[in-house]
């Protein structure tokens, strides 16, 4: 690991913190992109090329753009005069800490049960493709159907809106 790991980690944690603390929503979204990018770099550092590039393609290329679009289309881009923290921030903090503790506990528990492999498993994109098309083909298809249904649903919601506005 070494210093590169710490640099990338500082990068992504910094981005995530800025996303929470910045007042301007668009700035927060851009900071979130930095966190996504840092996460992708961490994947690449672990030699997980597919996960890393998919992270950039999906999160930086699509999710960040979607977030930014949503902010601009909902008049939320003005900076609020009072602070950005809601009144119930303490409860939110407690819930976030609880979720983090549960996840961390699960990861810690799972670590010893893994076979202690000396060599780093070399998983190429080719292997991932083969696994997706053979062993995991059913989950893949189910996700595809789910996403198609979601896509159709989104289109129908948008169409409904249009018809109503035409009548009104």
């Amino acid at each position, binding site marked *: 690991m070494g210093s590169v790991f710490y640099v990338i980690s500082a990068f992504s944690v910094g981005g995530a913190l800025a996303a929470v603390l910045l007042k301007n929503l668009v700035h927060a979204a851009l900071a979130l992109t930095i966190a996504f990018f840092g996460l992708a770099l961490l994947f690449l550092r672990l030699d997980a090329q597919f996960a890393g590039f998919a992270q950039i393609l999906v999160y930086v290329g*699509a999710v960040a*753009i979607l977030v930014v679009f949503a902010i601009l289309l909902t008049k939320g881009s003005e900076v609020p005069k009072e602070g950005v923290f809601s009144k119930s921030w303490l409860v939110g903090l407690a819930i976030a800490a609880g979720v983090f503790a549960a996840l961390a506990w699960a990861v810690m528990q799972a670590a010893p049960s893994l076979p202690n492999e000396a060599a780093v498993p070399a998983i190429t994109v*080719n292997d991932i493709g083969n696994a997706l098309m053979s062993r995991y083909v059913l989950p893949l298809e189910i996700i595809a159907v789910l996403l198609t249904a979601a896509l159709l649903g989104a289109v129908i919601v948008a169409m409904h809106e249009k018809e109503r506005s035409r009548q009104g």
Partner: protein
Amino acid sequence: MIERLDQIFVLLKHWLLGYLPESWQTPVGVIISVACIVGLYPALFAVTTVLERKGVGRIQNRLGPNRVGPYGILQPMADGIKSLTKEDIVPTSADAVVHFLAPIILVVTVFMGFAVLPMGRNMVLVDMDAGLLFYFAMGASTELSVFMAGWSSRNKYSLLGAMRAVAQMISYEVALLLSSVVIVMMTGSLSLVKIVEAQNHYSYGLPHWYIFTPWGFAAFIMYAIAGTAETNRSPFDLPEGESELVAGYHTEYSGFKFALFFLGEYVAMFSISGLGSTLFLGGWMAPLSGLQFIPSWIWFFGKLFVSMCVFIWLRGTLPRLRQDQLMNFAWKFVLPMCLLNLFVAALWRFMGDGWLRWIVCSAILIVAYFSIGREGMRRKHFGPRSYRYAA
């Protein structure tokens, strides 16, 4: 000798590295390669701007630049000096940091794409296992810089231009990815080097490029359309439609930052053309087996040059699309054709050799092309245009 000429840049690099100690060779080698890429494409950009201004000038029956140097070929020098010495104006209400970062991020992400493009035999910076995925990941990041530029300018024209650009890029990126997936299906690899190698054989002196198959041809057409839209080139240059939006997302940029946007746009064109020739036109391969004695890098850059000429030709010929036409075209024509093409490619793979698959696959694609096109045009009535003037 032929072999030597083909590998001249690789050999030059090795010769240079030979003077260095062992431990320095890898990092310095990478730096040399990166410096070559970063130096070469802006130089090509300078040449192409003259070509474009001259070419579009010819198409529009005027002369184009002809004052600086013989036949105006030194025009890019003058342009460069002008943009370097011009005042860099940032609007007072602009978001200074984001405004500053946007052109830099654009140029950086655009140049990253070249890391995986094989520009000749053994001439690739990183032969990545997931090269194509890397390329598209970098391409997706450019959208964010366009948005950043438009938003940070605090100008309604910039913001509208950025929104248009991002919407257009997202729509056509789907088509771009889906048309390239066909190639990955056939090659069985995401590595661009392997994709070129898979096309690298000849029968009867003719190459086995992917464009010479029904599905490859259809995918190439879709790729070319999506690539043109992705680089915001005419006829898809709505984001900077000067009659409506001044200059789109880079309205508020001046001096060298504007030049960076211009550079980024052009280099993205080179990059998309390079990827297109790698995927469909055999990359650095010669178009005839008898022409293999010409070095591979000449073929790659030759193909790049030809596609740049096509870009310029399109710009001079086609009128700009309207926003609704742009979106309808992407989602109702290009996307269904790309999806169908996936099925056709699978059919081609499982029908085995023979003439039958040529007939079946071509027939499906041609029928789909005409029926989707007809369906899209059915409710539209075309007739002589009526003009109403304010009295």
